[in-house]
């Protein structure tokens, strides 16, 4: 681009035409071309020039004179002092004076000020993007698609030539590129273009026209078939999308909630919806592979089948204990059409010949093992994927310094549409801005030593209270669960059966009560501590709550997985006591009870915490403010419930159905309660950060804990000997191993697979190596992030320097104009300098 810059000063000052900026369709992507254009056409950016002209007229105002940016200070370092000072003074002085209109003309047509604004610039920008995309996708244009030229090798092969084409040909090239892209890419490009919808439709119709003309000329019958298949797939995909969108659960309700309460409260309900889909998936998997086959081949029932009393819905025991709901119901043999001929007590024994009949057989233990394993594996993948996506959206590599600017531009929640919440939101933003301003302006006043000690003492006291309360409750749960377990095993006949079953509810009631009351205590303590920053307060309350729930679940898991199986090894007893016979079913029932009681307590909490409190505060206290909706507490409660559901899938394949019902009811109850009783949270709530935290909590303590427990159960605990698909084996995992052995015996060719299984899966060394590789990959990624951070700071410095260069050039330009135009004026300015 070795064109000479034409600073033609002989041009007279041009009349400012009142053109709308939207009329510009000149393509600006090269500086030299711009200058030439300027001097040829004299096209102006009217509004900007008007503003600058106003500046010219007013005394002592110049938009470029505000040299208080940090870059300016940076420029001072590392250069020759005297010459630098001199240049600076000259720059300052010149910029203080008014800029001539020629300079302004050139300024207003710089590429950075037009790209993104004019249509032509957008088209050329997207042309470049499509070229990049094509290069990435490796679909280079065929030579025959290009018009003949002397050097066909250069045209379009990734060389970004600065063309001097008009807007029309740029558009045509864009259309060419769009047509060559795949359908998905094309749609994504089209949708993401910041153009008018009518222009987008025009581009699209041009592209499709080209596609049609191309396709009709050179399709063989195979390609045509492929073409039709693709069209059919597209139609079906669109109709599926429409169907899914019409299924959009609860759109109107969610819109009402977001209209009144904003994104924070909405995130709770979206999280609920997200959990619902996990449970639906789990239910489909277990239903299709476990429940359905077993339902088609019901096993022989026990002699004593209890009758249905209403209590079963709460306790899950009684009538339900011998149904599809629990582990104990599932048979341990291969299900076949001719069941009577094929009952094998032991899987490892050789199968009787009648079992190998042509009827399809279904190996129940294997199915059970693999279904649960697959369900957990797929859930893990989905969780990790959504966690990383959410993390990517909310984590910023750079430490954000631009707090005020971000607050000004990003804090208004466009979803809120009701008048009062809008007023509340602007008050909130006002308060936050004032706080930020105070922080930025004044130095944070240092606390005196006495104040620091006092604060430390208060925090220490608060944490001591919380930890003491938590430990006390844990100890209580431990001894109470032990006591209740002993009580059941005593077979006290004096108590009625019903009472005995109702006493099973005692432990869940206690645990739910603790889960309800203690977080309230933690909130009170946090209020007492009087944190400065609301986000720290949220995090502290969250971590205390989390600590409580994790430890409660830990104690319960210990109780269910260590105590119950160990103490269930009792000699064959005559009565159908569930504890003795089938500890897995018992644990399944316990989890069912916990879910149900948890739901009841949530209902009570909503009733008392929200409805009655609102009535109380309206009528008795006569306060205008309604109770706020504590998002973190509620989301953590949802996570707790989901952990229970995941723990229970192994023992109760139908537990996801219970959880689905629970979540559905919870949604409707909570939405009604929130709309009636609560108001938007007063404290600022960082939605995407908190959502990321919640998804991380769902993945790490919750899902990981559940899968560790399930894996431990499958690996180490001896299944009960008289019920369930794994009876008689040393561990559930052995079923898989037995199948491997059986397969090897029947099919010597698959011995490789069996040997691979033995050496890889059962060898702990393999796990260590896998974990080691993971850690190395994580380390590399963290180093990459560090490197990127460094590059970002470097680039920022570079941008600042470029800004300085620009200012310098403009001032030099101005000085040339001044020299040419008013020599007298220059003399006076030099005198005064």
């Amino acid at each position, binding site marked *: 681009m070795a064109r000479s810059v034409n600073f033609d000063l002989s041009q007279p000052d041009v009349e400012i035409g009142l053109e709308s900026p939207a009329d510009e369709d000149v393509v600006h992507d090269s500086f030299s071309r711009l200058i030439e254009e300027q001097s040829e056409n004299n096209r102006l950016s009217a*509004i900007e020039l008007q503003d600058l002209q106003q500046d010219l007229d007013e005394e002592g105002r110049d*938009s470029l004179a505000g040299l208080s940016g940090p870059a300016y200070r940076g420029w001072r370092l590392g250069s020759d002092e005297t010459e630098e000072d001199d240049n600076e003074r000259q720059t300052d002085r010149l910029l203080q004076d008014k800029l001539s209109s020629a300079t302004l003309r050139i300024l207003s047509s710089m590429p950075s000020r037009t790209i993104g604004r004019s249509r032509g610039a957008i088209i050329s920008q997207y042309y470049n993007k499509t070229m990049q995309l094509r290069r990435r996708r490796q679909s280079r244009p065929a030579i025959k698609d290009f018009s003949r030229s002397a050097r066909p090798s250069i045209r379009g092969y990734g060389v970004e030539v600065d063309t001097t084409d008009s807007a029309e040909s740029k558009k045509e090239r864009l259309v060419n590129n769009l047509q060559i892209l795949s359908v998905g890419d094309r749609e994504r490009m089209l*949708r993401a273009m910041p153009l008018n919808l009518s222009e987008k439709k025009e581009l699209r119709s041009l592209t499709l026209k080209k596609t049609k003309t191309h396709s009709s000329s050179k399709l063989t019958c195979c390609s045509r078939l492929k073409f039709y298949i693709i069209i059919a797939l597209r139609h079906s995909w669109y109709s599926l999308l429409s169907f899914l969108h019409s299924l959009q659960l609860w759109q109107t309700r969610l819109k009402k909630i977001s209209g009144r309460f904003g994104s924070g409260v909405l995130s709770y309900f979206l999280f609920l919806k997200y959990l619902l889909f996990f449970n639906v998936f789990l239910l489909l998997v277990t239903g299709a592979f476990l429940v359905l086959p077993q339902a088609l081949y019901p096993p022989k029932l026990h002699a004593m089948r209890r009758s249905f009393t209403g209590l079963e819905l709460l306790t899950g025991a009684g009538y339900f204990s011998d149904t599809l709901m629990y582990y104990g119901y599932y048979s341990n043999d291969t299900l076949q059409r001719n069941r009577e001929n094929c009952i094998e007590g032991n899987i490892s024994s050789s199968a009787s010949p009648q079992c190998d009949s042509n009827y399809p057989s279904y190996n129940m233990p294997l199915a059970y093992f693999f279904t649960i394993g697959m369900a957990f594996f797929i859930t893990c993948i989905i969780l990790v994927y959504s966690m990383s996506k959410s993390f990517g*959206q909310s984590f910023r590599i750079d430490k954000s310094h631009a707090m005020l*600017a971000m607050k000004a531009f990003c804090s208004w929640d466009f979803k809120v549409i009701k008048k009062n919440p809008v007023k509340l939101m602007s008050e909130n*933003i006002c308060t936050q801005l004032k706080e930020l301003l105070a922080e930025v302006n004044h130095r944070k006043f240092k606390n005196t030593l006495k104040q620091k000690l006092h604060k430390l003492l208060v925090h220490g006291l608060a944490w001591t209270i919380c930890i003491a309360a938590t430990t006390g409750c844990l100890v209580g749960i431990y001894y109470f669960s032990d006591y209740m377990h002993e009580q059941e095993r005593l077979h006290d006949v004096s108590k009625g059966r019903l009472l005995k079953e109702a006493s099973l509810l005692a432990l869940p009631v206690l645990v739910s009560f603790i889960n309800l009351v203690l977080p309230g205590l933690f909130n009170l303590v946090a209020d007492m501590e009087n944190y400065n920053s609301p986000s720290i307060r949220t995090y502290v309350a969250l971590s205390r709550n989390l600590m409580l729930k994790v430890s409660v679940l830990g104690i319960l898991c210990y109780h269910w997985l260590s105590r119950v199986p160990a103490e269930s090894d009792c000699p064959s007893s005559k009565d159908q006591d569930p504890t003795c016979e089938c500890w897995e079913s018992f644990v399944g029932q316990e989890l069912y009870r916990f879910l149900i009681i948890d739901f009841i307590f949530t209902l009570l909490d909503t009733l008392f915490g929200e409805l009655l409190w609102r009535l109380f505060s309206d009528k008795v206290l006569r306060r205008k403010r309604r109770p706020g909706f504590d998002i973190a507490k509620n989301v953590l409660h949802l996570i707790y419930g989901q952990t229970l559901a995941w723990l229970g899938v192994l023992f109760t394949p139908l537990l996801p159905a219970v959880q689905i019902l629970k979540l559905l009811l919870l949604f409707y109850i909570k939405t009604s309660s929130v709309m009636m009783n609560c108001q938007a949270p007063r404290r600022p709530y960082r939605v995407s950060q908190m959502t990321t935290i919640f998804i991380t909590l769902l993945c790490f303590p919750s899902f990981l804990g559940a899968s560790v427990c399930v894996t431990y159960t499958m690996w180490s605990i001896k299944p009960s000997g008289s019920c369930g698909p794994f009876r008689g084996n040393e561990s559930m995992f052995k079923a898989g191993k037995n199948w491997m052995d059986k397969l090897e015996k029947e099919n010597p060719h698959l011995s490789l697979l069996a040997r691979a299984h033995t050496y890889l899966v059962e060898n702990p060394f393999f796990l260590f190596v896998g974990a080691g590789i993971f850690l190395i990959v994580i380390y590399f990624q963290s180093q990459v992030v560090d490197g990127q951070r460094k590059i970002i700071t470097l680039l920022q410095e570079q941008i600042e320097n470029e800004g300085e260069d620009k200012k310098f050039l403009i001032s030099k330009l101005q000085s040339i104009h001044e020299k040419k135009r008013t020599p007298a004026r220059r003399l006076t300015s030099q005198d005064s300098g």
Partner: protein
Amino acid sequence: MGNKQTTFTKEQLEAYQDCTYFTRKEILRLHGRYRELAPHLVPLDYTNNPDIRVPPSLIVTMPELKENPFRDRIVETFSEDGQGNMSFNDFVDMFSALCETSPRELKTIYAFKIYDFNRDSFICKEDLQKTLNKLTKGELTPEEVALVCDKAIEEADLDADSKLSFADFENMISKAPDFLSNFHIRI
């Protein structure tokens, strides 16, 4: 359904589906909403692409926009003539750019255009002052507003020309994780 057959042709609906983030049903629903604003002006039959524009005074009566302090700027930005008179294309374009699945880059571009009150493709101090006044509805004193503007521009302005160009704005927005979820209107 009778509606689908008389409002848009199949090709029109496909074009809308390809160029926006909406599905067929949503586009028809949007047409219903658009028509609600001015039933005497907007015809039911759009198969021959009538050139009808609804004036901004009617569009800002929509419940989604009524209480929004930036409603005038939003309507002006998405209208083709820059005055706020929106055709159906502009209407769909507006809600598509502000919907949930719209990507961050697109939302950033339109946010910049909305906050650029004087349309000089820079957010200067006056633009920021107007933004703040609309946000806080006059709760801040003029001195505080000026101070906030100065500090904000100082923080975000990278090339030190005391205005925010699009690059500065984009850089600042990329550090704000809440932007995507806040800059979203549900229709």
